[in-house]
């Protein structure tokens, strides 16, 4: 058990609302947990903000709490027990400089959590993991999507044989859309959140995560043609969409319910649709669909080999409080205190590797791209 006295924040910027603000506020003021308000366990905090020396919102926090804003990242980390790193907005590139500074400067036995992806490449993520181990620093990355409430509260029973999985997400809200719980996400952000939502579900399958054998990018008509050929599952998309509270289409017009899949409306509604077909090394097929104009929330569906479909919505609580960050703060506190990872670091490595491949032009040809370096296996 680690005694938590000082926490350090390494932030690209501090603005409302943002993951940086949500996490800083919780580790200064506290958060809701199990029907109670829990005060932050840390006695003091220090922050380094890359893009501004002292933003007004943060300055107010220096008056309200025992928070010091310092001009250098290394200075923020001095004598800290734990470090939180947050990029500008959901899905922004990982700030690898911050991670390196944290791993170089944190006292041995400390803990570091980075919001979002661990790194921007698999190689860098692996190097960080190795460095953290050698310096006896507990390292982890993630977003609230992996621990948020599910509606309904379902989980894949551990060691269930699984044949297919799908997650449908939104990258950018539609004009006039019911207000999204979070600001628009970057292209990379949609895929990050989709992986953060889907991997915790499917890694519970029999044998655990086996790694990824290949990926294939599809967009526009090619995405629908692949669906028609059964290369991703329309029934799973229908099941996932059935969990959405924000279907678009005529629901926006007059509140009418629609079977978006059954009526064949999805291709017409989708704006710039794109998807990633992921073949895992154990044969599982996963699909990540980014369907702006179809839904404004995050929903998954998985098909066990024994039949049936398990589906749910990954719930994001409304602004300004975005209480899914309260759940993340609780998980982070436990991680900081005990050093026990709530999920395997290998998940972060796999996500870093997948996002790296997603971002490469050579991955976006519409052809299947082998990913021999993504054979990252881990148990749930």
């Amino acid at each position, binding site marked *: 058990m680690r005694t938590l006295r000082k926490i350090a924040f390494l932030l690209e910027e501090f603005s409302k609302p943002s993951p940086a603000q*949500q996490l800083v*506020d*919780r580790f*200064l*003021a*506290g*958060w*809701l947990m199990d*029907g*109670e*308000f829990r005060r932050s366990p840390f006695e003091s905090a220090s922050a380094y903000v890359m893009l501004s020396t002292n933003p007004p919102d943060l300055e*107010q926090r220096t008056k*309200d709490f025992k928070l010091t804003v310092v001009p250098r990242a290394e200075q923020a980390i001095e004598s800290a027990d734990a470090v939180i790193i947050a990029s500008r907005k959901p899905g922004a590139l990982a700030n690898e400089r911050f991670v390196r500074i944290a791993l170089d400067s944190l006292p041995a036995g400390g803990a570091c959590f980075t919001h979002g992806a661990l790194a921007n490449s698999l190689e860098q993520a692996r190097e960080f993991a190795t460095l953290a181990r050698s310096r006896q620093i507990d390292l982890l990355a993630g977003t609230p999507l992996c621990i948020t*409430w599910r*509606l*309904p*509260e379902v989980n894949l029973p551990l060691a269930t044989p699984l044949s297919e999985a799908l997650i449908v997400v939104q990258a950018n809200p539609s004009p006039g*859309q*019911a*207000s999204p*719980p979070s600001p628009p996400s970057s292209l990379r952000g949609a895929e990050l959140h989709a992986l953060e939502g889907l991997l915790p579900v499917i890694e519970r399958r029999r044998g655990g995560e086996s790694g990824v054998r290949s990926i294939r990018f599809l967009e526009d008509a090619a995405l629908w043609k692949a669906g028609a050929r059964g290369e991703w599952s329309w029934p799973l998309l229908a099941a996932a969409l059935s969990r959405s*509270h*924000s*279907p*678009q289409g005529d*629901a*926006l017009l*007059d*509140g*009418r*319910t629609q079977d978006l899949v059954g009526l064949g409306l999805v291709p017409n509604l989708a704006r710039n649709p794109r998807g990633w077909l992921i073949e895992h090394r154990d044969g599982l097929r996963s699909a990540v669909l980014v369907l702006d104009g179809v839904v*404004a929330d995050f929903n998954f569906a998985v098909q066990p080999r024994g039949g049936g479909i398990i589906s749910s919505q990954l*719930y994001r*609580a*409304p602004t*300004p*409080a975005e*209480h899914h*960050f*309260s759940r993340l703060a609780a998980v982070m506190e436990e991680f900081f205190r005990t050093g026990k990872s709530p999920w395997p670091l290998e998940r972060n490595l796999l996500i870093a590797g997948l996002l790296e491949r997603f971002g490469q032009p050579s991955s976006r040809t519409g052809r299947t791209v082998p990913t021999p370096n993504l054979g990252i296996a881990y148990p749930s």
Partner: protein
Amino acid sequence: MELAGLYVDQFPDGDLTRDRARRHRVKVFPTVEEALTLGRSSLAIDGVVIIAEHGLYPRTEKGQTLYPRHEFFQRTVKVFESSGRSVPLFNDKHLSTDWKECLAMVEASKRLGFPFFAGSSLPVTWRIPAVEVPLGAPLVESVCVCYGGLDSYDIHGLETAQCMSERRAGGETGVKSVQAVRGVKVWEMVAERESTQRLFSAALARSFTCRGNDRYSCTVPDLDWLKRNHRNPLAYFYEHLDGFRTSVFLLNGLVSDFSYAGLERGGRIHSCQMFLPMPPAYSTLADFFNPLVKHIEQMILDGAAPYPVERTLLTSGMTLFAIESLYRGGIQLPTPELKVAYAAPTQSCFWRA
């Protein structure tokens, strides 16, 4: 299940009836009776749904809107009687604004022997987290923190609390008295009731929308802050016949969701949010109606209501006597009429699917 016919009482600007009816080929009838008989001589349908919570209707001096729920119900009952046949009936929200009418509606359903299901969607919607008060739990007090107005969302708050309270050991016994209070006196009363204060905080800690502190939205306000900053709350305080207590807080501007906390003898607290994905702010569809519609369908298919109508009889009375208390200056009002005892269903029917 086929929607056989509609009777719609008013057609305001923005009416959707005609478009929906045309698209789904559903006939709109000019009277309640014709909708039930489909224009023939006797009852021609298998179930009835009465929804009356919008539209322009007279208001009482106490602030109630005289929606025609009782009138529609009575006209339906007359068709049942003249047809020599009754079918399951669902009544949305509280039964009536008049206690005698509420009693008459339940009495008619017993007399004619038709399944009668009524109330709010709150008891059957998702819960975050998906908690269930065990049947027979030693529950001693319930609190709901919610929003809305007099004779409108107050029934939702009451049903939120009652679907949990009724599961206590001994079941529901009825309500002995009510006191409705508006303004800072609410906070004074909370301060005097330690367990209520504890439950109030626990319920507030399940809200996702609490705007107590603009600067630090992740926090929840304490009583001192509320006294200073939230000066026009509305609260209903009830004493049940077995000593149980229910409090409902309508806190417009502070929250826009429904949260519950219940205290067991011994100190254990059950708490959750009854989750309403309410458009347009949080969703595009009011999907909390999905479980309600499912239960209505199941009642019509099975011929059995999912839970006793006495729950809604009691919450209807709790609503209208609270309004009476407020009208009479916030007095503590004895409610000998509300000796409504009933047993909770084994399954509380909230949405887990």
